[in-house]
């Protein structure tokens, strides 16, 4: 249980670190990194809940949820980067 708690707390810290940087940074790329760290924090909370000691089988449901979340996160990241690139091109023109 202690392991699960350590990682769950780490997840909470990562989540709030991400929120903080999303609010405080003012350019896109750092904010995007921040949102990804935020997501990693949430995923860590999920996965630490699934962990029930080395001897018990883990709960597969949070694992599947996190896998879904990962793919959603990279889709959003790709879209944001594409928007950013177009905006950059327009600034240059």
């Amino acid at each position, binding site marked *: 249980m202690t392991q699960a708690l350590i990682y769950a707390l780490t997840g909470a810290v990562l989540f709030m670190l991400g929120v903080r940087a999303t609010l405080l940074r003012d350019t896109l790329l750092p904010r995007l990194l921040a949102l990804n760290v935020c997501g990693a924090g949430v995923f*860590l909370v999920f996965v630490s809940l699934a*962990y029930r000691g080395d001897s018990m089988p883990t709960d597969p449901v949070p*694992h599947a949820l996190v896998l879904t979340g*990962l793919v959603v996160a990279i889709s959003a990241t790709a879209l944001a980067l594409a928007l*950013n690139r177009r905006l950059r091109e327009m600034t240059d023109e």
Partner: protein
Amino acid sequence: MIDLNLTILPDLLLAAMLIGLAWAALSSDDLRRGVVLFIAFGLLLAIVWARLQAPDLALAEAAIGAGLSGALLLVALRDGVAGNETAGKLSRLSRWLVDLFVLIMTCLIGWVLWLTIYAEPVERLAQLANTMLDRSGVSNPVTAVLLNYRAYDTLLELVVVLTAVLGVVVVGRQRRGYRQAGPVFCGLVQWLVPLLVVTAGYLLWVGAHAPGGAFQAGATLAAAGIVLRLAGYDAAGLPDGRLLRWLLVAGTGLFLLIGLGVTLSGGAVLQYPEAWSGSLILLIESAATASIAAALVLAYRGGRPGDWSSAGDRDPNREVST
């Protein structure tokens, strides 16, 4: 309550490194440095997933979270970053308030997690998911959740990928390619690309009973495309025009058709007949792998591919007016 023994030392170390890397990546003013630290963060996270007995996630994180996100972010560094898009810097007071808010919320979330983990153990879905495994058609529980119990989530997730890549296509022009690679890199590519394709096939196949599956396979296949592009093959292995659109649609389309088709046998939507579920899942996963790989490579290439559609050929410079 906490048994302080040496076995949690590695966990503490990993947790501290995660937080430290995240902090360093987020507080760095040098963008390149931030991105590189973020990639390292992703790799460390993959180790944590392995530690928490989530090998499926470790694979996915290494391939998607660290690998492809990293590639996308690095190539975005080459594009440059648009100037400040939010209005002005925050005042010192509001920064201080944000910090206070973050501190309070961290403590609250941590406290609730503490309470939950040390409360009477909640029997979550683990037991149920594992007992129903026999009826799911696969023996890897994560694949069972993804493609059977919660297949609808996965269907919508494929739609999310499709939407995002359409956004990438709509927004801009394709990136310039790279110059032809030198002999050493070309030699590497000749080895690496077939190996990646084989690995993707293996991951797809093995997902039914061991860690792996469509997403990991798709990401590996996409990595092959990215390597090709880096070596100077501009198309990155993707077809043009109509075939590309078929490839993008394949995963969602086949999933939807199968999900609806199984109702003909009298069941609910997405209720595969038990005898067929293994093969249907593999079929869906194969199409999904192709679509995911195509979408990710397209996102890396960026912008509208050549011969995408001829709908606007008459007047190519016209933008939609607001």
